[in-house]
């Protein structure tokens, strides 16, 4: 497996594949299906200070080659995440990237400070891009100055490197990327979901109770690839790419565009074994490209 190992700030990855936050819970369910130690890392579900109930149902709706969701960052709060979920994950040899969310700067700082001390949390993913909550999501991620300020505050509080998850729901994602880099971000994860809506064929009303939802799945891959490509040119910190990844070729595409590692989201719902399957497929994909080590393909589209 040494053809696949990678080093990113805080992260010693056996391979570049990790389930994306929100698509893998805290790992317990998938642990019934395969050994989580096979994964490069796990991006756990967003964690807030208090228990968060989330949005009313229906929370998901299918679209063409995609899915809308409006879960609303439901989570049991940091005490339970640290005391139960992260403890459970200590049973596996896999670095954890903790997704940190809040409603104001102080919340983010508190979660970051505490959760970054968990022994298996090797990096944070700062959630400034959730489109499905009224407070504490996307409004932090659409203004460069706010994004920079929050990044700096969380960076100062965290004991581990901080990656910032960018939203595609902005006019210029490169501006936000530069801002979080200036705020001290160690890396960028991108992209979060695109705000979308589906109407019920009979009633003409939105299917999702929240009205809008975040679009994910294969439908958004071209958008994500373009954004990774643009941001790679503009920043000097590593990118973890995501958006519609379903197979080894998608991983090659994201890394070619400039990602140093790749997260798999909605595909985990469609093929519950997709992450280990991709990891198994990657050596053959590298052979087909005539490449010995996976790091050789990072950013090759720019060369």
């Amino acid at each position, binding site marked *: 497996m040494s053809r696949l190992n990678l080093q990113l700030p805080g992260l010693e990855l056996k391979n570049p594949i990790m389930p994306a936050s929100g*698509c893998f819970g805290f790992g*317990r*369910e998938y642990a019934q299906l395969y050994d989580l130690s096979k994964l490069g890392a796990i991006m756990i579900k967003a964690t807030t200070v208090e228990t968060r109930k989330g949005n009313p149902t229906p929370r998901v709706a299918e679209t063409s080659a995609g899915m809308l*969701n409006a879960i609303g960052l439901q989570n049991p709060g940091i005490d339970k995440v640290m005391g139960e979920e992260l403890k459970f994950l200590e049973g596996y040899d896999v670095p954890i990237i903790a997704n940190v969310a809040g409603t104001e700067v102080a919340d983010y700082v508190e979660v970051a400070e505490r959760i970054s001390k968990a022994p298996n949390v090797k990096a944070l993913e700062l959630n400034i891009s959730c489109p499905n909550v009224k407070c504490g999501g996307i409004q932090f991620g659409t203004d460069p100055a706010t994004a920079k300020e929050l990044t700096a505050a969380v960076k100062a509080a965290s004991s581990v490197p901080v990656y910032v998850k960018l939203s595609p729901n902005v006019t210029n994602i490169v501006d936000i990327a530069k801002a979080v880099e200036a705020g001290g971000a160690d890396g960028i994860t991108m992209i979060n979901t695109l705000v979308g809506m589906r109407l019920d064929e009979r009633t003409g009303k939105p299917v999702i109770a929240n009205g809008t939802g975040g679009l994910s799945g294969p439908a958004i891959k071209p958008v994500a690839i373009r954004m990774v490509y643009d941001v790679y040119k503009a920043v000097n910190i590593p990118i973890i790419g995501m958006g519609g990844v379903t197979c080894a070729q998608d991983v090659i595409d994201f890394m070619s565009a400039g990602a140093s590692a790749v997260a798999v989201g909605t595909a985990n*719902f469609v093929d519950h074994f997709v992450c280990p399957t991709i990891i198994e497929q990657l050596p053959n994909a590298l052979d087909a490209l005539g490449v010995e080590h996976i790091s050789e393909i990072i950013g090759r589209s720019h060369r």
Partner: protein
Amino acid sequence: MIRQEKMTVVAQAQIATNIFELTLQGQLVQDMTPGQFVHVKVSDTFEPLLRRPISIANVDKEKNEFTMIYRAEGRGTKFLATNREGQMVDVLGPLGNGFPVEAAQPGQTALLVGGGIGVPPLHELSKQLNARGVKTIHVLGFQSEDVCFYEEEFTALGDTYYATVDGSKGTKGFVTTVFDEVKPEFDIFYSCGPLPMLRALEGYYPEKEGYLSFEERMGCGIGACFACVCDTTDKIEKDYVKVCSDGPVFPKGVVAL
């Protein structure tokens, strides 16, 4: 144990208007209990994208076969209906917690109440209850006669009453209309169907032990995505449950109706 398996289509038949019965063969049948469900990938592409949760209507562990009955209404289930004998279907399962067959004691009588596409899981349940020496009474509600199915199968297992909204079969009205007419005597009830029916049932027999099977839009089907959560009553400590992994069957009174 949950498995993901390419199962072989043994038979596919239309048994009522838009209602199909699909029989699949594979190893994961060995772990099935009544009331559990499977998550089916209906096409080999990403269109439609998500798997479909479908209940288990019959289990034959000797033949390694199970049957599911579904309504071909949306894009996914219409796709599923095109499968023919010998084709392979990607199935994840069995999932969730089924009906507690052992909650009914031998010699007791169980009332099984189903509505529409909630009726199929009651068939395997009834078979297993009968095998345990529990008498079963079935009250099944449908929109109209043309979408009714499994009349002979249910009748062979116990007294079976129908309610149809348009009155084309059995009692005109809902399952509760049948309760008023027949006044069934029983010890325990099990039910699967639309939420208003489950709510009515819970209110109708407040003194009886009962188990309800719920349906909610799902993403992953295994409890990771938090799409199918339901609020709970104050009878249990948790403030929410997930239909896919905590359910789909819950004791009466757990889910806030």
